[in-house]
């Protein structure tokens, strides 16, 4: 609260904040009461199936959608038919139903529809950028509230999505989403309501919004303001200001659109405010009479989608009718706002419970006592004092910890503290390490542990006097007393077997079976290793890496290599006894690169030759890992195995696997088996690896099913990574593979690590997610941990917390550095505690929440049917939002969807998680892909999950070529694509360059060096290097995007209307997905329905 308060200059906002009455519309309120929405919903459920069907047709009708607009009435009949199911809505909306019908088709179109707005957005945005003025904001806010009239104060709530009502209309679109059986229902009713409102309300709304200055109230003008209003307050500064600007802008957009049409205007604004306001408006709009209007619009836009040019036309009709995608919270807007508001100033960690900027924002961190958000991010920075509150809110309390996170060059890496032989100072009772929160008492002779309150003696050599504030005089000289993150040098007591570790080793284990040879992998890899070995991670300014290397090749037997420096030629040792693996040599297997360079080079030269004629197709797998582990064991060091593997290990050996891929299992109770390992052997093996500090990185090059679920068990449990290159071909994939390999080999790794999270009394770390192994309930054992790996920790209450003292986290990581030094890295973080739920909701971080929820869900699929997992997620999310609505938002009509400012993106992001490949696989997604992604997400940090689930879509040709900055992203929806433009889409793993069909010839020429669109090679993965500004800019942008991600993203050029476009569209996450994933709008409606059910 404090924070918030301090932040938000505008008290009024504070009020509005709590209430996200997206759904101002009293209309809704009315509806529920009158129509008894719940029941109707029930009814709908029945129909659901019908919906699903409809969607299909919808798809097919996509084109028809366009028809829709033309004759609303005409369609009406159809719609009715379809709606027949919906029944309720129909009563009033005989006509409306028709409208809906149109929407259905439109739903698909929706995708396209949005486009129109999108288009408008950009334009709008520019103007708006400046517009945002506090004055306006307030004005709007006021207006909003007014508009919200329904729930005056409430509506102001940021995202008050009047839309709920609008949702109804949206629902029309939902049918497309089909999958959400529930949606349709929800929608249906809303529609009816909406319509009902439409009749009466539209004016109302429009009035208030208009008041705010929205010329096109109908569309969303009104809602917009209301939304923004609330939003602003909720967020405090950023939120509001941003939103406001949007609002402000909204009017202008209107102005712009106006050109197009009346409705058009409203449309545009939404885009502008892409974030909340628009959504708000839209929703309202949807709910209102506009419903019809929009439908037709949609219809048109739909078809129009492909061609943006047409937009203007369609948009007009669109805006009025259903839930305007622009009116619902826009991730892009939120990200932009946060960037603008928080990107400029460093984030100073001195204050307890501060919510850091979003992961998408570039900011500097100044460590003043709490760990940088780069190390730890929490779902909430203000946690409930009691478990009851926590249960009520259902907001998971979790921290996403990345102990060895890489820092930008401007930030210093943690100081290393050496306490000599006595080792780090710790609390005697709970063993917490000395940190800035420890209280020195009795003149500095003792200190009280901030975690367990135990009073400890200060050892004489550590004694220091206190100043008048009770602080040690030397507090600022000692990192452990003044910083949130620092390192201790560990003493021998912290080492395995009480022996200082020897430097770690890397072992490269290369599959040399027929497939690997034929694909050119082996040759490529060997060639690369020759140079790559010069770049092994080294510590600090060390001249050369202390890491030793070893080489193994294998097919169904293993070949070890003796590369001792004294040899003229490497020696190969074949071990055929795969059933009982062992290491055939000790001396000469692990060598220093510089000493044995000649031999290693010779070896790498010869490996491809030696196996060039191999006919061996069978491989083993478990024995390979076993061998590497045994080798490390024999050398008495920790280390990392790099496995390059091509096929399902079917050779007779331990860990032999069979092909069990069975797509028929999808959507059955047995689906979970696809994610589970085939045999327990790998778990056992992984445990041994962990005990030895042997981390395994797996590079897979499968041509067919390899059972990633099983093969990744060891990497997963040993803190390793899995890379998968399906159908690897040197020409196409070498850059990606080599880049990943280089990065993987070069990255700094901690070995043989143990992580422990200590908390102050009252909460406790209870659950852990990530790539590691746990043999007890508290210690996270990581055979290896690199700067990309994240551990997500969930906390639960076991007692009351104290508002005054807050809650403290201390994450201690004991690890062996690349140079073989044993160290302890400590991260401390202090959180606030609250007795008011509102404080909780005000200090949440949705991105982190999603990170946690995704990991939770992805683990859930191991044990429960996917459907259950998805339902659980939806339910939890609904509960979170319902709790907010019930306890924090000012009273408003149930028809309003009110989202907490901090969580306004929760639905959209959650929807992305729900429709991700793991939870809702499309037909083209292989079992391996799902297992792979599941495994990847498990150790992703917040930034990675953020972009993974909600890809970034960057228009390349919108902004002037000269501008050096990254173009602002647009929402991931097909309707945001203009066929005259080129877009980049990335999600951290994939990178697409989408080329619109009517892109200017000049652009095509300067990017692809071909004369026309049709000549562009679809599926191209490299852009020609051309000497013109556009080409340079695009390539530069691609490079910079790649640089931001931990894995190399292979570029795929997708042409509009090309068959590859299907692949691309999969990533347009705001749209319905082919596999049945709901569109954002549909899902939001569904959420709303869920929430309302909970509330009622």
């Amino acid at each position, binding site marked *: 609260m404090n924070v918030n308060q301090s932040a938000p200059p505008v008290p009024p906002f504070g009020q509005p904040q709590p209430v996200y009455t997206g759904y101002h519309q009293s209309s809704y309120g009315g509806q529920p009461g009158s129509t008894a929405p719940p029941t109707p919903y029930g009814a709908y459920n029945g129909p659901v199936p019908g919906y699903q069907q409809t969607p299909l047709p919808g798809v097919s009708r996509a084109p028809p959608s366009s028809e829709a607009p033309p004759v609303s009435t005409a369609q009406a009949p159809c719609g009715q038919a379809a709606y027949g199911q919906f029944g309720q809505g129909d009563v009033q909306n005989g006509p409306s139903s028709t409208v809906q019908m149109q929407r259905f088709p439109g739903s698909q179109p929706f995708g396209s529809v949005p486009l129109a707005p999108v288009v408008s957005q950009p334009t709008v945005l520019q103007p708006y950028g400046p517009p945002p003025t506090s004055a306006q904001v307030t004005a709007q806010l006021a207006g909003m509230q007014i508009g919200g009239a329904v729930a005056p104060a409430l509506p102001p709530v940021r995202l008050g999505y009047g839309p709920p009502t609008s949702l109804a209309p949206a629902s029309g679109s939902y049918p497309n989403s089909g999958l959400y059986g529930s949606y349709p229902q929800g929608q249906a009713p809303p529609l009816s309501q909406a319509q009902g409102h439409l009749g009466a309300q539209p004016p109302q709304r429009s009035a208030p919004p208009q008041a705010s200055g929205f010329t096109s109230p109908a569309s969303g003008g009104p809602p917009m303001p209301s939304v923004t209003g609330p939003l602003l307050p909720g967020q405090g500064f950023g939120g509001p200001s941003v939103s406001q600007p949007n609002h402000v802008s909204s009017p202008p957009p209107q102005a712009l659109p106006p050109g197009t049409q009346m409705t058009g205007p409203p449309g545009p604004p939404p885009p502008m405010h892409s974030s909340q306001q628009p959504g708000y408006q839209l929703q309202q709009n949807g709910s209102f009479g506009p419903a019809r209007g929009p439908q037709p619009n949609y219809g048109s836009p739909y078809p129009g989608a492909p061609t943006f040019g047409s937009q203007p036309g369609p948009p007009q009709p669109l805006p009025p009718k259903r839930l305007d995608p622009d009116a619902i919270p826009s991730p892009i807007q939120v990200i932009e706002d946060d960037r603008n508001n928080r990107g400029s100033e460093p984030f100073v960690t001195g204050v307890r419970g501060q919510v850091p900027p979003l992961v998408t924002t570039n900011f500097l961190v100044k460590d003043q006592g709490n760990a940088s958000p780069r190390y730890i991010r929490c779902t909430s920075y203000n946690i409930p004092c009691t478990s009851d509150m926590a249960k009520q809110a259902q907001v998971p309390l979790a921290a996403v910890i990345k102990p060895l996170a890489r820092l930008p060059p401007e930030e210093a890496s943690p100081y290393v503290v050496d306490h000599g032989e006595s080792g780090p100072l710790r609390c005697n009772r709970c063993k917490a390490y000395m940190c800035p929160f420890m209280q020195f008492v009795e003149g500095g002779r003792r200190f009280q542990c901030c975690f367990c309150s135990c009073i400890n003696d200060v050892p004489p050599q550590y004694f220091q006097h206190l100043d008048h504030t009770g602080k040690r005089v030397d507090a600022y000289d000692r990192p452990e007393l003044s910083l949130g993150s620092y390192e201790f040098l560990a003493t021998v007591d912290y080492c395995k077997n009480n022996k200082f570790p020897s430097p770690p080793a890397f072992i490269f284990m290369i599959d040399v079976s027929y497939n690997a040879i034929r694909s050119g992998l082996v040759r490529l890899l060997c060639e690369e290793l020759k140079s790559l070995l010069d770049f092994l991670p080294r510590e600090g300014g060390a001249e050369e890496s202390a890491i030793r290397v070893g080489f193994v090749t294998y097919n169904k*037997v293993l070949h070890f290599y003796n590369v001792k420096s004294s040899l003229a*030629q490497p020696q190969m040792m074949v071990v055929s*006894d795969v059933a009982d693996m062992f290491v055939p040599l000790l001396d000469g297997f692990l060598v220093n690169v510089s000493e044995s360079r000649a031999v290693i080079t010779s070896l790498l030269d010869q490996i491809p030759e030696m196996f060039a004629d191999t006919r061996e197709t069978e491989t083993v797998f478990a024995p390979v890992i076993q061998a590497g582990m045994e080798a490390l064991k024999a050398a008495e060091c920790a280390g990392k195995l790099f496995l390059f593997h091509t096929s399902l290990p079917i050779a007779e050996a331990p860990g032999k696997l069979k092909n069990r891929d069975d797509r028929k299992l999808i959507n059955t109770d047995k689906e979970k088996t696809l994610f589970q390992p085939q045999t327990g052997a790998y778990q056992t093996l992984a445990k041994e690896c962990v005990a030895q500090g042997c981390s395994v990185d797996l590079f897979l090059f499968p041509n067919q099913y390899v059972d990633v679920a099983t093969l990744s068990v060891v990497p997963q449990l040993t803190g390793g990574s899995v890379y998968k290159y399906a159908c690897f071909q040197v020409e196409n994939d070498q850059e990606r593979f080599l880049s990943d390999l280089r990065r993987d080999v070069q990255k700094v790794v901690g070995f043989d690590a143990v992580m422990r999270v200590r908390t102050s009394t009252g909460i406790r770390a209870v659950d852990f997610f990530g790539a590691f192994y746990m043999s007890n309930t508290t210690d996270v054992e990581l055979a290896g941990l690199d700067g990309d790996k994240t551990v997500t920790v969930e906390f639960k209450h076991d007692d009351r917390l104290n508002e005054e003292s807050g809650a403290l986290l201390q994450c201690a990581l004991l690890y062996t550095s690349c140079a073989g030094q044993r160290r302890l890295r400590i991260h401390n973080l202090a959180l606030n505690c609250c007795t008011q739920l509102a404080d909780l909701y005000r200090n949440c971080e949705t991105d982190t929440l999603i990170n946690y929820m995704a990991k939770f869900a992805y683990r859930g699929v191991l044990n429960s049917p996917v459907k259950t997992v998805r339902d659980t997620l939806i339910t939890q999310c609904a509960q979170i939002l319902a709790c907010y609505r019930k306890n924090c938002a000012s009273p408003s009509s149930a028809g309003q969807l009110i989202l907490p400012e901090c969580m306004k993106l929760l639905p959209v992001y959650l929807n992305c998680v729900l429709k991700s490949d793991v939870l809702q696989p499309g037909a083209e997604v292989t079992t391996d892909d799902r297992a792979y992604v599941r495994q990847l997400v498990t150790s992703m940090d917040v930034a990675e999950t953020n972009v993974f689930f909600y890809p970034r879509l960057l228009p390349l040709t919108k902004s002037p070529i000269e501008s050096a900055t990254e173009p602002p992203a647009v929402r991931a929806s097909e309707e945001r694509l203009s066929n005259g433009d080129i877009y980049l889409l990335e999600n951290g793993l994939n990178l697409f360059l989408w080329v619109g069909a009517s892109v200017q010839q000049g652009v095509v020429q300067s990017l692809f060096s071909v004369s026309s669109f049709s000549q562009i090679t679809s599926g191209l993965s490299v852009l020609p290097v051309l000497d013109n500004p556009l080409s340079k800019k695009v390539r530069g942008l691609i490079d910079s995007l790649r640089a931001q991600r931990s894995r190399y993203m292979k570029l795929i050029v997708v042409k509009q209307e090309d068959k590859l476009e299907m692949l691309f569209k999969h990533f347009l996450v705001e749209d319905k997905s082919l596999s049945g994933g709901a569109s954002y709008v549909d899902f939001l409606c569904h959420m709303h329905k869920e929430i309302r059910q909970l509330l009622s």
Partner: protein
Amino acid sequence: MATYLEFIQQNEERDGVRFSWNVWPSSRLEATRMVVPLACLLTPLKERPDLPPVQYEPVLCSRTTCKAILNPLCQVDYRAKLWACNFCFQRNQFPPAYTGISEVNQPAELMPQFSTIEYVIQRGAQSPLIFLYVVDTCLEEDDLQALKESLQMSLSLLPPDALVGLITFGRMVQVHELSCEGISKSYVFRGTKDLTAKQIQDMLGLTKPAMPMQQARPGQPQEQPFVSGRFLQPIHKIDMNLTDLLGELQRDPWPVTQGKRPLRSTGVALSIAVGLLEGTFPNTGARIMLFTGGPPTQGPGMVVGDELKVPIRSWHDIEKDNARFMKKATKHYEMLANRTATNGHCIDIYACALDQTGLLEMKCCANLTGGHMVMGDSFNTSLFKQTFQRIFSKDFNGDFRMAFGATLEVKTSRELKVAGAIGPCVSLNVKGPCVSENELGVGGTSQWKICGLDPTSTLGIYFEVVNQHNAPVPQGGRGAIQFVTQYQHSSTQRRIRVTTIARNWADAQSQLRHIEAAFDQEAAAVLMARLGVFRAESEEGPDVLRWLDRQLIRLCQKFGQYNKEDPTSFRLSDSFSLYPQFMFHLRRSPFLQVFNNSPDESSYYRHHFARQDLTQSLIMIQPILYSYSFQGPPEPVLLDSSSILADRILLMDTFFQIVIYLGETIAQWRKAGYQDMPEYENFKHLLQAPLDDAQEILQARFPMPRYINTEHGGSQARFLLSKVNPSQTHNNLYAWGQETGAPILTDDVSLQVFMDHLKKLAVSSAC
């Protein structure tokens, strides 16, 4: 009787055969009363420079149970072109090729001087010789270096088309692939896990990879060599490669902590070597050469744990049944030895270490397969180096003195049956009419397999006279024995050597004198010794001695001339006179006495005793002692402490050791440096003489004896003192007075005492 000596010598020269009796008692009963069984020492491949092999195949008796080979003893009907088998009396047609046969045109095999003849078989594919080195790498650096050099040297001695292979072992076992260029490649096996031949072949890729290749190339016959080619390559192809490989051999890299023995997987290494050859070259001449520098310490066949504080088993432990690994290890090696023998391969053991290396357990590998066993202190000694070199020595034809995969078949005329054989052989379990029910040595068969043999390899073959007393052999009748040895000559030819001998029958009652005169006491001593040693392998030492004593007493009773109860009247004829003395020394020999010998040493001595020819065996039983002095030319002297005189230089040859011993005065003179003074050049020559003689012996002997140069009072003098007859001891020193030699500090009985007892017992009627 000189004629008999000549006869014996002549027979040995011609046939390589020495019989204990050269006139045979004609009935079973009499034969058993002769005490010393009718037996012979057969040297199957005795070098016969004067015997060119014939280039055709032998003619066999057509009776399937006989199949004796046409020989000079057969009766031939030149007109009818028939010959009668002298063993089964079957009448056989000569084969078509013999149509031109007549009294004046006889094939070689019918000529009396060709009682031993060698045929060359042209049939069948000739497969090259195979040498598989199995090398221990748990050696000291200089040891390993020396071994590597020896091995590299040996490459130049091998026949150029021979196949060689290399297996090294330490904690792991590595089978080196020799065919590859560039990277040297080896297959590694865990040293603790025994594998079946099938597993080994699978793991070496000797089975499956063959399949695709078979499909690839129709040429089936080439299949095998190609597959195994990875591990066994013709020496001329990979000479350089292998030399380099050997040069790069490292010591076993696994750390050996203080107080531990290195982990040495000899058992598995051998098992793999055997399995490799078994799968690739069954039934062809192959030699597995194991070089080891210490005891197996892990895996199957381990002899001792790796804790240094637990010493390797001693005879004491074995007697106390305290050798925990012995039985299991022995079983392992026996199993290997039998497999190897079945495949016709042989295993050599070259064990060089200061401590024991487990020869006791491994001995069967060499014993059963006809392999060599060499024991030394270090690979870095001339003893090993020259011994090893001598393995590849060549005969007058330029052929290697080795043969492989031999089968020895014995055929006897009806009055005889074969009771067994003692030597480097295994039974082939071929029953037949001439197989006795009584076994002496390895019996129950008429055929034995000798996987590796050289021109000196000698077997003791024991017979039983089965002719009943009541069915006397006609006067002047002769018994015949035919030895048929089929083997792979080092030139890779298959050859058959046939020796047919005949001896007269004599009625022991009427013609005892004849029989007595035809007694070959040297052969008898060796044959009895072999029986004794053979028994010692399975029986308690004292029992064997007792048995030997009884046999000796019985012999003396039978053939001595004496008056009852009057020891002084006891006399033995010339043909028996040396026999008791042989027995005396045999009793003291390391073959029967384990005191002061490690189990390994005992095994080593026994191994050689069981395969050397008569002369060498006799040296082993009773070492030869020469004396050098200013009094005259060197002379053989009694192996007696009285021969140890201050002004003499002694040269003793025990077969295993050559000891040069300087008497007290001589030693002092040498110390004073007289030999360097020109005026005492004769002294210099005196010192040099035994050295030259020793050198001569060293040149010829295999294995190289331990060469000891010592002097009066030197610690090494014990080798001499332990061998000589302790005629003077601390007990009787003063009784014997001033004149002679050195007293021996022992409680052993002297020959004199022994003989006194013998006489007493022989003349006593009690036993």
